[in-house]
């Protein structure tokens, strides 16, 4: 049972990590908790399902297209809602973020209706359900491996982008000091908007994976996932990308093991308790000491 619970936890933890990096990257560049991020995750699922059931696109194409749409949504969110408030008090932007979250949730309810929907039958490639590996009595399907693979690819890819590319360098510069970055010839607004796009694409990816894996999507699905991922980002040290990844995985595993070995009634409580305990002993989060360094090196 332990191995099975570990697998359960790693799957959901990987999903939390994908959403959490979005929170943390955006916090890194604009010091804003983007509460509408959970809604981008929800939109990802709905876009994918719409592409599959109305346009009849195959799973992988719909997957990519939905991610691109989420990236665009992320950019729009920044341009429409946050950019006009760039120089206003932080609280104004925070409230706008909450407002955008409510707005997007209701928009989705109007467009797609409020009741839960299944992921289109037969849309996910058939071999996804087949067992790929068996170890210690636990069957891992190709879908498990697909999610693990994407999580790993995201972690490595994101690190490469931030550390090795010009754009990653610009991101780090903006995170460190916007004025200096602008003086050095970096288009700050564009870097911020691109960061929103990247965060949106990853959030959308998480949404598609969850809706396909658990076979359900509904307009309010972003709320709980968003809160959990935000907790993961805080657990890892908000602003730190590796922290968010680790935070997501820790939270997911804590949740699965907590439900498996302690009480399932307090499953969510256990995961938040883990976060609170970490924050009490390491106030800046797991990678807290790195916050200042990450800001420099991000």
């Amino acid at each position, binding site marked *: *049972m332990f191995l*099975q*619970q570990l697998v*359960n*936890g790693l*799957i*959901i933890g990987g999903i939390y990590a994908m959403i959490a990096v979005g929170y943390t990257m955006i916090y890194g560049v604009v010091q804003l908790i983007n509460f509408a991020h959970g809604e981008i995750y929800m939109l990802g699922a709905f876009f994918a399902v719409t592409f599959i059931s109305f346009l009849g696109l195959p799973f992988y194409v719909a997957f990519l297209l939905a991610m691109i749409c989420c990236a665009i949504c992320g950019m729009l969110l920044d341009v429409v809602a946050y950019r006009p408030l760039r120089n206003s008090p932080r609280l104004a932007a925070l409230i706008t973020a909450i407002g955008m979250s409510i707005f997007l949730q209701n928009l989705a*309810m109007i467009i797609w*209706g*409020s*009741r*839960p*929907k*299944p992921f289109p*039958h037969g849309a996910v490639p058939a071999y996804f*359900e087949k067992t790929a590996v068996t170890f210690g009595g636990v*069957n891992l*399907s190709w879908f498990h491996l697909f999610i693990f693979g994407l999580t790993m690819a995201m972690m490595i890819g994101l690190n490469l982008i931030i550390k090795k590319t010009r754009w990653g360098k610009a991101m780090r510069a903006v995170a460190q000091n916007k004025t200096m970055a602008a003086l050095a010839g970096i288009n700050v607004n564009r870097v911020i908007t691109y960061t929103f796009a990247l965060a949106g694409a990853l959030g959308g990816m998480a949404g598609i994976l*969850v809706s396909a894996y*658990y*076979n*359900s999507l*509904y307009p*309010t*699905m972003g709320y*709980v996932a968003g809160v959990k991922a935000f907790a993961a980002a805080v657990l890892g040290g908000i602003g730190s990308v590796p922290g968010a990844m680790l935070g997501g995985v820790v939270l997911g595993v804590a*949740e*699965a*093991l*907590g*439900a*498996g070995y302690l*009480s*399932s*009634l307090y*499953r*969510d409580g256990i995961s938040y308790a883990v976060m609170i305990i970490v924050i009490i002993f390491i106030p800046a989060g797991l990678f807290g000491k790195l916050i200042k360094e990450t800001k420099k090196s991000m």
Partner: protein
Amino acid sequence: MKNKRNFLIIGLALCFAIIFGMTTTVMAADTIRIGVASPFTGDLAGYGDNIKAGVSLKLKEINDAGGINGKKVELVWGDDLCAPKEAGTVASKFAADKSIVAVIGHLCSSATLAAMPIYVRAGMPTISPTSTNPTIGDVGKGWFFRNCYTDDFQGKYLAKEVVPKLLGKKKVAIFYENNDYAIGLKDSFVAGAKESGLEVTGAEAYVAKTTDFTPQLTKLLTAKPEAIFLCGYHPEGALIAGQARKLGFDGPLFGADGIDNADYIKIGGEATNNTYCTVPFLAESAGPAGQAFAKSFQETAGRDVDWMSANAYDCLGILADVIAKTGPDRKKIRDGLAAMNSEATGYKGVTGMTFFNEKGDCAKPAFVKMVKDGKFVPAQ
């Protein structure tokens, strides 16, 4: 300048008040207004659809026949999302509207439990087609009635009849939602299991709107149950069915009245095959009146009738009967409902004979449905 604007605003507000005030008084004069509270949007909108279809059919029949003593009936919808908080808002709205003389609802037990104190204070008679939690009668203080059975009965029926006899299973895992309906149901099932000698291999809880049930299921399945009790509502039930099958469980699943909804099969797909559930009404087992109702429901709604529609249909029928005798007055309607306390004074509807005990509860038989090849069919 500022004064002028204030005048304008006050003037406009007055105009609106007069217009709206007039319309409600005009409507109150020649119609009888009844509130219907259910989740019409949100995750459980599938339940609200059924309630709406059932009462609308009865409404049409009543009004086509000339209304109640010449007065047309009008329904006022209240969307409570099955949430106790929203139920309170809906109840306050209904209670404050003097033109509403009775309420059909609420649907979910948690919602009804939250709304009842408000109705009791306002003196509003309510009749729920679906709330099965046994404790509601105590909170209702004489203003609450229902034409469905309670979970005391339903949980024991599952434990004594359905699982050992129909399914022929002995080891059961319980997976229940953390709400008033499911906890009440679980408790009565556990009590019944003790009496019938069933072994409960484990009981785990979940919170509404969860998508990942695998940690709890993994734990439940290590005890090797022969059947899993889906103790909750259909959206989560459908997901649990899917995830249980993925984890390799191929035995029967069973639930209670909360599972009987077309959305259960729509969301869960193939995984929902081999699911059993108890319901208070089954068209196939109903008498001639029930059969005729099932046919006209099929014609107007374009789908098979379900137990919630049937109960809602009868709720409006009961209210119409009582109002015809007592007139549209909240207190008198309550007294009229309370007087239906024996088979002789009861109401014979499509769901059989309904009469209430002092708590507003009624005794109804349970039927069993099952999912076979992607469709609900009678199991017996």
